[in-house]
């Protein structure tokens, strides 16, 4: 194994930003407030501690204005949450999205290749993941592990890669002053990874990927549960079938396979570069053109994966899996529309309506009742189709069947009664609030922008409008269309410490209505 001497590496490392740029200014020197600041608002009750034994006092429901009346206001910022990001394309096809945030010291740099685990041919699960790892294994100019080290030397506080079903992303959050380093590294490995890749590097990262898989349980019963979920919900031809990584597939990968895969997918016309944070957009554009502009692809660009829009299942499918655990698990799932497609935002809001608050139907029926100890309701959105899932873990002494019955009863009430405008508005407001709070989070903003399609750039403002548009009628329609009763997957993980660590499918049945 070739080791780059750390000494050489750091001699060439970026200039260090000194701490001397930090100043503290204190206004007023910690003086006491002036008397006029201290007057309590008119009509305010005298403070005091809550009375003892308030148990059983009448509950005032849904009248929060009576908790604390306040006429004090701070206006919400007028106008859009942020300027629309700048999007343009280099001559070689690289899609660029820039979102400067004045005043921020750090910037998030993210390169998203439009290739994910769904793009690997059948029998080659893990090829996309291993290629992602190898993007950190150096080039003809960067030694092994040096990519990570260079980013850390540049002050990157986040630096990692990630493989999803749809894309492989590489991101760093580093001082905006060091942006050129991140751009050079991203461009250099896009251009020259294969020039430095050899069988030894592939073997070492293959071992790391296998370690990761074992550590995260992907090759054990957890992976089997996820595979059963996706395979149980999606049609046979769907690209997301069979994408859960298998150890044998990873072991089969050799240098030539990675070379082929990289050449096909890791190219400027199959990637999006996103920068969000404190940087000078003019200087950044120049640097992007200089670094990424000369990169050329090898061969033809791949056709993007396509899948027919998902439709609801025709019947109820029930899969039981033996898991090596101490508590059973229940997952109920439906195929749902793709990320940003019509119905996607509605299903996000439905997940909040069902379980976002203590009195929400599923949370009340499962957690507040003591039937379950864990509950998650989530729309897992992907580019080619999504899965809406209710996941629950029963309390001690309770069976998953009790949970399923309680879920069915709660969903039945929702289907017959629906959600009213007020509840829907509150749930949608939670999603709008979440988008607003994302304003501060550079990495989250970069990740969101990296999911941009040709027609839709998920800027903060557009995302806000997407959720603001969800109303009770839209929720009703989405519930009826996408979450039909008895046309779904019911996946049970049946636990015992003596079950095989790999898990085992015990039964797989279709229940015709």
């Amino acid at each position, binding site marked *: *194994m070739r080791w780059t001497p750390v000494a050489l590496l750091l001699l060439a*490392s970026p200039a260090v*930003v000194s*701490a*001397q740029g*930090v100043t*503290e200014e204190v*206004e007023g020197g*910690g*003086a006491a407030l002036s008397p006029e600041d*201290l007057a309590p608002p008119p009509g305010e009750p005298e403070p*005091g501690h*809550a009375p003892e034994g308030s*148990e059983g*006092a009448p509950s005032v429901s849904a009248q*929060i204005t009576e*908790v*604390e009346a*306040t006429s*004090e206001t*701070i*206006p919400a910022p007028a106008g859009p949450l942020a300027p629309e990001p700048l999007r343009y394309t280099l001559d070689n096809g690289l899609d660029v999205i820039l979102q400067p945030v004045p*005043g*921020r*010291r*750090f910037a998030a740099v993210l390169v998203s290749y439009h290739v994910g685990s769904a793009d690997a041919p*059948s*029998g080659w699960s893990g090829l996309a993941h291993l290629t992602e790892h190898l993007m950190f294994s150096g080039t*003809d100019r960067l030694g092994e*592990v040096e990519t*990570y*080290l260079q980013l*850390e030397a540049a*002050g990157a*506080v986040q*630096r990692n890669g990630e493989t999803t079903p749809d894309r492989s992303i590489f991101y760093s959050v580093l*001082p905006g002053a060091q*942006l050129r380093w991140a751009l*050079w590294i991203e461009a250099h490995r896009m251009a*020259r990874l*294969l*020039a430095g890749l050899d069988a030894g590097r592939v073997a070492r990262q293959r071992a790391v990927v296998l*370690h990761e898989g074992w550590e995260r349980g992907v090759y*054990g019963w957890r992976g089997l549960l996820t595979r059963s979920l996706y395979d149980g919900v999606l049609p046979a*031809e769907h690209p997301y*079938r069979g994408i859960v990584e298998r150890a044998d597939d990873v072991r089969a990968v050799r240098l030539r396979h990675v070379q082929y895969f990289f050449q096909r997918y890791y190219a400027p016309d199959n990637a999006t570069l996103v920068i969000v944070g404190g*940087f000078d957009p003019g*200087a950044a554009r120049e640097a992007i053109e*200089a670094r990424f502009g000369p990169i050329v692809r090898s061969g033809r660009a791949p056709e993007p994966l396509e899948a027919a829009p998902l439709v609801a299942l025709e019947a109820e499918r029930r899969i039981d899996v033996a898991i090596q655990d101490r508590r059973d698990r229940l997952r109920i799932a439906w195929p749902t529309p793709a990320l940003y497609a019509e119905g996607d935002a509605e299903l996000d809001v439905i997940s909040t309506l069902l379980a976002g608050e*203590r009195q929400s139907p599923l949370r009340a029926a499962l957690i507040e009742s*003591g039937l379950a*100890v864990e509950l998650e309701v989530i729309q897992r959105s992907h580019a080619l189709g999504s899965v809406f899932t209710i996941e629950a873990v029963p309390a*001690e002494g309770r069976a998953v069947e009790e949970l399923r019955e309680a879920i069915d009863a709660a969903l039945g009430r929702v289907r017959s009664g629906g959600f009213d405008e007020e509840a829907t508005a509150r749930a949608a407001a939670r999603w709008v*609030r979440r988008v*607003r709070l994302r*304003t*501060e*989070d550079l990495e989250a903003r970069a990740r969101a922008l990296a999911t941009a399609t040709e027609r839709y750039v998920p800027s903060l403002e557009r995302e806000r409008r997407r959720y603001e548009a969800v109303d009770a009628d839209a929720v009703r329609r989405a519930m009826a269309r996408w979450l039909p009763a008895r046309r779904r997957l019911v996946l049970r993980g049946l636990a015992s*410490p003596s079950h095989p*660590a790999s898990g085992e499918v015990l039964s797989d049945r279709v229940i015709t209505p």
Partner: protein
Amino acid sequence: MRALALLAVALLGCGLRPSLPAPRRPLAATPAGAVGDPPTEPMASTPFRLRLVRRELSNGLRVVLSRGEPNGVATVVFVSRATPRWGADVDPEVTSQMARGLFRAVQTDGGVVDDPMERELADPTVEALPEGIRITERLPVEELPRYLALLERSLRAAIFRPADLTRDRAPRLDRLRVRRRGPDGRIEAHLAGLLHAPSDPRARGLDERIAGLEGLDADALRRRHRALSDPGQAAIVIAGDIDPAAVLPLVGRRFSAWSGEAEPAHPVEAGYRGEGPRLLLVEEPLVRSFVRVVDRAPPFVDRDYAAFLVLEQLLGRMFGARLNLTLRERRSVSYGLHAAYRASAIDGEIELVTAVRPDRTREVVEQILAELRRVRGDGGGELEPLELSLARTRARETLLATLDTSEGLARAMARRVLAGQEPGAMGPLLRAIDGLDAAAIQAAARRWIRPDRAVFAVVARPDALGRVDELPLGPALRVARDR
């Protein structure tokens, strides 16, 4: 498409995979040098400036305000040292559960209102820290008046109903009992007791935590809550897109009438065991062995704090940590090793965690032991100047990154107020990090890290444990598999 999928399944069934096309030549179509040399000049830097307004209300409540990025978002952090988690005479579970129940229900003139925060879309994070309580909420700025009103009401008029306690506690207890039967729980049942002296409440294991939770009643929570109601021991820090001139009167009017006085709290300082077993071996037929090493570390008010921020990076917070590179890249025995340094105003702990191939468990434990000795400088162990430079950069920038958001800044400042430090005086800490050399770091390591006293916990198959047991780590506490 379906035919292709069926063919693939058939091939896989025979143990064959569809072959992939050969790569093209040249492998890299872009010529060497096309993207240029690495940059030599940094781009323009944004200086980091803290602008603070500090006031104290007549009731003693301290207020710290900092105006930040104009993005419509602010963070409010309330802290109080009146109810430390490690209080001298109070079960830590009482403090934790009181903190969890703070926003469950409040008394108003019109009756009891359930979940006041949730009704307003707020979702504050409440933490029972070793030295006090911290409540954090990030919110759109227009929600600030409302949130402050609800916060004040909850601090003053939260009620703790037995039925709420029963309902909230049940799933917690259930999860803890399930965890207790698993490998993590069997570590946690013993690990704290191996590190801390029996008289230190930190020595309580999972069984004691479960017992403490089971024994709680609502009166204990109410008593603990009364102690919290002392503005003289509390502070509010607000950072973000705020105008201090507008927010200060809001806080003043809302909180100046808040009253109450508690006995000064006496958090228990950490007490460490000096003798006894420190090797914990837990039998479990796992496909990977888990190794967890814990030792004492300084509180963040200690002179060695800056050195430990750098040591944390050196030991495994940064990818370039020697141990991580050795285990992951050079020896191929692990996905990686992670180090975490946790420091409060009164105590600290450093932890190294990794999952490894069972047949290499002993070797990894030896590697960790050797690394602990190296960072102390034992036997002439040295820190290379350039790994030190990398660790200092990472420590400094990680700290600066937390100050780059309203939430990180407000939380950091509130924690400093809790410890009696100047809230915004980050410069000295950053300069201290930059000024550390190898000798200073090794000296700090020697003051706290003791390879002959650190606790080593290993969960693994019996054959892997047997080889670890042979290491010179003293007598082992062995925990058999739960059947």
